[in-house]
């Protein structure tokens, strides 16, 4: 046999011609990628560049002439800079500005009077200079002659430059950068508590033979159905200034870290529970049999088998909880008091002080730990997959009266905590006027009498939730299908995967702020969606894109890789295969995605708090605003409305899933 060289010969490389299907699929993928770029990458980029934009007043950028009392000019040219050196009316620090700042010129003339006959001339020294006369913007270097009364209304506009100024400013303001410490503190404490609580709860449910497991599992999931700020309201009723159990705090205030931590434990509990429970469920019984046959003590088995087996789950849960707490806005807003955290700082800077640049800086600061936590979690989760083996034997717990009872008591305690919070909220919503008039009434449900948009915001939320669920599921599932099942186009697909993973790392507040910067810019052709329901839907879909995308990809990976090949060999369009086979087979995952999006659209606060308009107020925002306005009972009432709506949606989802499975998944039964 002659030797064959093992390098490719010269000559043309075969370039495949694209079939119609390939073209359609690539086009679809490009469309969804463009969507992700427009709704995430570009806004985030805008925000990043905003955080590096600094504004200051350039006193040397203007020239002035002052006439005598007869209106005659002697040709002397003054600059505000020179005048300020002389008079010292403005400190150098005061020259730092925001994008909307303005500064009058009359302060440089101590003897200015708007009634005097003196005339003024003013001009920019460069073409980029700008000043306002009233509300009219003047550019250019031509002299403008004004009487005293008009000159009073002349205001300088700041000059934009790029630099680290905002960050320097941020880190030299203790009131601001202390929030980093506060946020980290809260997140770490909450993480430790939640993960410990959730671990033993999941352990009890997976590894003991205690009773009522189904009930406890259900209760553990309940916090997912409410906005994160709802536990804050319950805590106010329990431990607030007029709280029922105020004495239990021994004088400490619930408004602050204590409140935030308790509330965070409540709303992050289900997330930690799901992850840890999954990790414990996949443990291999053979390892325990080996431990028993080696006469290991239960304590030793726990540390050498159970914990190592669940360690990825524990680490993953810890990072997820950390991320949720550090990026959460609603809860610290409601119960944080004077205790500043990063997410609330963004809100305060933007809504309170209209300092968008500083808001952007805080956002960048917040993104760093969020992305770190996200990246570590992804790394850990990819290892968790490798732990699964097809030959593992599921662990079957054996009844043990003593431990079963301990776990039952423990689970009751946890369930009491979760249900207690919800019951308190419902109770608060139903009584007339805490703590003076404890009779029941539905007055707190008359939302139209309160701030926050009334019942309209509730129906807006429902609309948002449906639109998000429907549009989001279509876009996300189709996008996942395209990226998972199309041929070639490797770079494009890798890029798409990256885009799809990004939203998870971006805190809601940051996304919302980025949307303001991006969509509120009049030069943006997409500006028209600003202030509409559309931007809320877009924002919510993007915000919750990643988890949905991963669910879809997991389901699609379980489909035979060769379905598409078979369809192509039979000359049938891929989209027909998609419609007839892929969608029906993946229906459970599709329904999961839609309920996930629905529930989150109902409860989300952080991203949309910057984006709602008077016509698109939302229930979750109404809770926030009513609480802010002191209408805590109606806030609780609205919060519980969200809870019941989500619970209802879950039940409908369950029924629908059962029915659909019964009809379209008959093939699953052998």
């Amino acid at each position, binding site marked *: 046999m002659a030797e064959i060289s093992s390098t490719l010969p010269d000559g043309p490389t075969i370039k495949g*011609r694209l079939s119609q299907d390939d073209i359609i699929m690539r086009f679809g993928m490009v469309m969804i990628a463009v969507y992700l770029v427009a709704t995430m990458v570009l806004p985030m980029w805008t925000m990043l560049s905003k955080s590096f934009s600094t504004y200051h007043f350039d006193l040397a950028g203007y020239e002035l002439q002052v006439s005598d009392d007869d209106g005659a000019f002697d040709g002397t040219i003054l600059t505000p800079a020179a005048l300020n050196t002389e008079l010292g009316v403005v400190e150098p620090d005061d020259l730092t500005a925001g994008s909307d700042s303005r500064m009058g010129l009359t302060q440089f003339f101590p003897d200015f009077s708007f009634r005097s006959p003196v005339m003024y001339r003013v001009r920019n020294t460069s073409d980029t200079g700008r000043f306002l006369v009233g509300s009219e913007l003047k550019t250019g270097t031509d002299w403008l002659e004004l009487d005293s009364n008009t000159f009073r209304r002349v205001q300088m506009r700041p000059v934009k430059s790029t630099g680290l100024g905002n960050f320097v400013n941020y880190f030299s303001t203790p009131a601001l950068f202390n929030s980093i410490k506060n946020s980290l503190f809260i997140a770490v404490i909450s993480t430790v508590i939640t993960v410990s609580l959730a671990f033993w709860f999941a352990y009890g449910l997976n590894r003991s033979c205690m009773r009522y497991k189904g009930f406890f599992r259900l209760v553990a999931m309940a916090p997912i159905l409410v906005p994160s700020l709802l536990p804050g309201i319950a805590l106010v009723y329990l431990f607030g200034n007029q709280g029922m159990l105020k004495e239990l705090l021994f004088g400490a205030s619930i408004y602050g870290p204590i409140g935030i931590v308790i509330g965070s434990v409540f709303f992050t509990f289900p997330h930690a529970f799901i992850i840890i429970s999954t990790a414990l469920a996949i443990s291999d019984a053979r390892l325990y049999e080996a431990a028993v046959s080696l006469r290991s003590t239960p304590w030793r088995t726990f540390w050498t088998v159970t914990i190592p087996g669940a360690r990825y789950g524990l680490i993953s849960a810890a990072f997820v909880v950390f991320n949720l707490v550090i990026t959460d806005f609603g809860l610290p807003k409601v119960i944080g008091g004077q205790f500043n955290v990063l997410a609330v700082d963004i809100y305060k800077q933007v809504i309170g002080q209209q300092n968008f640049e500083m808001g952007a800086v805080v956002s960048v600061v917040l993104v760093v730990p969020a992305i770190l936590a996200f990246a570590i979690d992804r790394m850990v989760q990819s290892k968790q997959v490798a732990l699964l083996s097809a030959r593992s034997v599921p662990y079957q717990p054996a009844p043990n009266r003593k431990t079963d009872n301990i776990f039952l008591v423990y689970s009751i305690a946890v369930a009491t905590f979760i249900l207690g919070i919800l019951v308190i909220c419902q109770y608060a919503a139903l009584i007339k006027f805490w703590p003076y008039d404890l009779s029941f009434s539905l007055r707190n449900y008359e939302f139209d009498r309160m701030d926050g948009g009334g019942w309209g915001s509730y129906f807006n939320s429902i609309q948002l939730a449906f639109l998000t669920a429907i549009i989001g599921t279509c876009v996300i599932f189709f996008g996942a299908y395209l990226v998972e099942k199309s041929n070639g186009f490797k770079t494009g697909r890798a890029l798409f995967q990256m885009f799809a993973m990004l939203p998870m790392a971006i805190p809601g507040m940051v996304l919302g702020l980025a949307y303001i910067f991006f969509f509120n810019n009049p030069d943006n052709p997409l500006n028209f969606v600003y202030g509409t329901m559309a931007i809320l839907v877009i924002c919510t879909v993007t915000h919750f894109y990643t988890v949905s995308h991963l669910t879809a990809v997991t389901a699609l990976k379980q489909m035979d890789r060769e379905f598409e090949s078979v369809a192509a060999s039979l000359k049938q369009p891929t989209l027909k295969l998609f419609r007839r086979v892929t969608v029906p087979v993946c229906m459970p995952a599709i329904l999961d995605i839609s309920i996930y999006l629905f529930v989150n659209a109902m409860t989300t606060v952080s991203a949309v708090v910057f984006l709602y308009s008077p016509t698109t107020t939302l229930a979750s925002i109404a809770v926030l605003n009513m609480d802010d306005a002191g209408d805590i009972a109606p806030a609780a009432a609205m919060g519980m409305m969200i809870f019941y709506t989500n619970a209802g949606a879950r039940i409908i989802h369950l029924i629908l899933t059962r029915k659909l499975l019964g009809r379209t998944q008959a093939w699953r039964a052998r």
Partner: protein
Amino acid sequence: MSAVADNPNTLLGGADLTEATTEARPYLSIEGLWKAFGDFIALKDISLDIQEGEFVCFLGPSGCGKTTLLRAIAGLDLQTKGTTTQAGKDISSLPPSSRDFGIVFQSYALFPNLTIKKNIAFGLENTGRSKSEVEARVSELLELVGLTDQGSKYPAQLSGGQQQRIALARAIATSPGLLLLDEPLSALDARVRVRLRHEIKELQRKLGVTTVMVTHDQEEALSMADRIVVMNHGVIEQVGYPTEVYRDPATLFVADFIGEMNQIPAISGLSGQVQIGAADMICRPHDFGEGTSVVAAIRPEDVIPHGDGIRTTGADDVIITPENAFEVTVDEMEFLGSFWRCCLGSERFSNSELIADFSINAVRRLELAENKKLTIELPKDRLMVFAPGVG
């Protein structure tokens, strides 16, 4: 120069083809095909012609590139270089949907949520056939694969063998010119596999469809194929009829991969001579030249036992000492049902052990037992010489 060109049968069709069709243009023609995955070259300069109606097997160990070649033919993973021509048309760069083939995968890839009937009908829809035509064709196909009464079941309700037949029915539903089978039987248990072998072969003969099957199972290839393409490390080692690749393997790899083969290090002599240990043997003609290190090879069943070392032929008791005969000791015997596998040792063979399969009759007649001496013959037309393997 590759083995393909060496082999005069490359251009020949299947065993039952006549002279006239032999000269016809091949139905499927692959020329100078290369496939690279990054730096790794999976297929090196593959050229192959397949005649219309032929059943060809790509046989080789896993990772030899046989599935890659099949997928290149289907257009599922395009080759890096080289051309493929089907029915006179250059299809090298066409997407799968523009090619003319049906395919069956190891996993069957049946659509789990569609009934058997709908699975088979999948490719018949939107092809200008009326509903009743589609139905008639589906019934016809179900009958063809012998599953007439299973049409309204779902794939998961059928056995593996049944599912494979449905996958086959779906692949041939549109009467493609080329049928590709990617390890179609590997997921089945042994008994079903043997039965389905015959069924598929018979079906192929009945339909006359040109078929390419990928397999790593030599028995499957030998029993089903008109011609076998033996592949290794991305090159074709040999193309030939099943009997040919078995009896006249072109390379040591083919000799070793198909069937059992004794391999004994040796030194080549003149053509037709080889020196094994201290013994000079007569073997098949070769062109290695004197003094080259080679491997002498013989199949265990080709070793002839002679008892006391003397053979009598005819009635007149003429005693002849055969060529290539020498004395050995039976070191070990293993009973394998229809024959005995014997491990033979000999000083003349230096350290190598020789494996020989003797019929039960021969063992009884020669009263063979362990540690007994006997004379064996290595028939000169069965003793082959190869260049040593690469690794």
